[in-house]
């Protein structure tokens, strides 16, 4: 079932696609404009398939959230495993002291 096809070029997407092909088209649509045929093929599948509609919406929403992660880093406190420990903190200060 593995198809190592070129994803950059529009393919002759069938009018009735599987969930697998539909998800692939959703991903491609983030990177380039789908051809009319691809777009139609994706829409037709999403129209019929509730779970792929969930999939498409979730992926899109997650991408929007990921893109805002720097806000989170700036606004939420870091957990312990995301903090420099004191030894390293001192090591960096020492190294900077030598450099200055």
């Amino acid at each position, binding site marked *: *079932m*593995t*198809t*190592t*096809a*070129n*994803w*950059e070029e529009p393919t002759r997407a069938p009018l009735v*696609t*599987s*969930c*697998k*092909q539909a*998800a*692939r088209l959703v*991903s*491609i649509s*983030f*990177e380039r404009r789908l051809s009319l045929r691809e777009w139609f093929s994706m829409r037709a599948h999403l129209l019929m398939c*509730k*779970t*792929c509609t*969930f*999939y498409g*919406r*979730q*992926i899109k*929403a*997650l*991408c*929007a*959230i*990921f*893109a*805002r*992660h*720097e*806000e*989170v*880093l*700036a606004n*939420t*406190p*870091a*957990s312990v*495993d*995301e*903090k*420099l420990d004191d030894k*390293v*903190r001192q*090591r*960096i*200060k020492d*190294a*900077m*002291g030598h*450099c*200055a």
Partner: protein
Amino acid sequence: MSVPAPDNNYPLRLSPADTWVDQHGDYLFRYAMMRLRDRELAENLVQETLLAALKGRGSFGGRSSERTWMVGILKHKIIDHYRKDFRERPVTDLQTVEEQTVDQFYDAVGNPRQYPRDWMPDPQAVLNAKEFWTILRGCMEKLPKTTSAAFAMRELDAMETPLICKELGISPTNLWVMLHRARLQLRACLEKNWFGEKK
């Protein structure tokens, strides 16, 4: 950021070594940990970043905040690291491996093995939920190194595809397949560990 005015309690002017590590160290470290899965590596890159900033501080024009400037330096160091990772890996089999992983999510006729459930992330809730980012980090760690690097550049840093391909020396198709696989896997992992529970 202005240099604190010298006052009597501090006979010597504070040097960057004293202030930068405490002011920006944790942020830079956290930023690096989001993109690398290796504590030691993240620590080293933070150190290199601060040293580079110290050396280059004469050329820092103050057009952006001090922190933004340092994040820019760190970003380059992380990309340098990704580049090395990709160079050590035969890129020819990359696409095959990634497509095989994509196949694992589906049966022979292309139906998902696990049908996506009905949930929608609430951006405001997610952005404030610390555990969400911990879980996301855990999910990213389950991706192969190269895949999570590509994902981080595209989705976290919003880099343009051609630039990522150039930096990593891969074709757009290679990159897109990796991103597709990362999306499938991260979505499923988040559904299982975060959104599933919340429902």
